[in-house]
């Protein structure tokens, strides 16, 4: 119930799992995400974002915006050797971008 209500809030709290964003974020770190960030402006290269996996909408990924391409946004991990990202699944539509990372806590 709390989680359902949480989905309506303008911000989200996430715990990082995995190493693709090393050294920016490590496993277990918590990030605070602004869900409204892209309502009024476009993502820009370098932004840290939470996106839905285009192959599986239930899965959330933490990536960095690379550039705009083919009507979507290419997202990459900071640690390419341990990342599945736009190199594998192509550009991500803006509607799949959950929000922009504001900081860790």
């Amino acid at each position, binding site marked *: 119930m*709390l*989680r359902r209500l*949480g989905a309506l809030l303008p911000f*989200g*709290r*996430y*715990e*990082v*799992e*995995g*190493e*693709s*964003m*090393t050294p920016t*974020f490590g*496993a277990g770190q*918590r*990030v*605070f995400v602004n869900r409204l960030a892209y309502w009024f402006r476009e993502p820009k290269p370098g932004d840290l974002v*939470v996106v839905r*996996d285009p192959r599986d909408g239930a*899965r*959330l*990924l*933490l*990536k960095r915006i690379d550039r705009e391409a083919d009507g979507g946004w290419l997202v990459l*991990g900071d640690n390419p050797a*341990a*990342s*599945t990202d736009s*190199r*594998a699944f192509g550009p991500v539509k803006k509607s799949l971008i959950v929000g922009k990372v*504001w*900081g*860790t*806590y």
Partner: protein
Amino acid sequence: MNALLRSTLRFIDRVSPPDTVSAHCDIPCGIYDPHMAQISAQTVVRMHQLIADLERPGPDADPAAFANYANSMARYVAVKEEHAELCKQEVRIIWADYFKPEHLGDHPELHTKVWNILKLGSKVRQTVDMKAAEDLLAGVQEFAEAFWASKGASTTRGPSRQAVGGESVYPA
């Protein structure tokens, strides 16, 4: 982020744990090996051999002989089905999860090769066709060589030392 906000968020997390956001690959194991695909393709060839060698009972054979013939045939076909699908699955995983666009520079024919393997993997299920089975194995072996080459490893071809005969590709 200021300390008050931080502790507030930490408190909320205690009440309602945060969602998980993934920052890794499907499984971050990075372990891929075309060996399974090759064994599956060899199994498909072997089933074709067994089907070809299976002696058909004559018109005067007793019902038990015919039942055994049908039983063996059914088993060979079932294993052929299963391993053709397994072969496709293994190749599909390596192609989709391991290979990346930058590999296409050195292996421009990769997509075509995979496409042919997947087509042949279906054909050997739909029909009993030794040529298709051998083409499937040959395709998978070239795929295995491309896989190891992309990792900077050389390969050798040597006797399979399996009932199916022929060669196997081994990483050197």
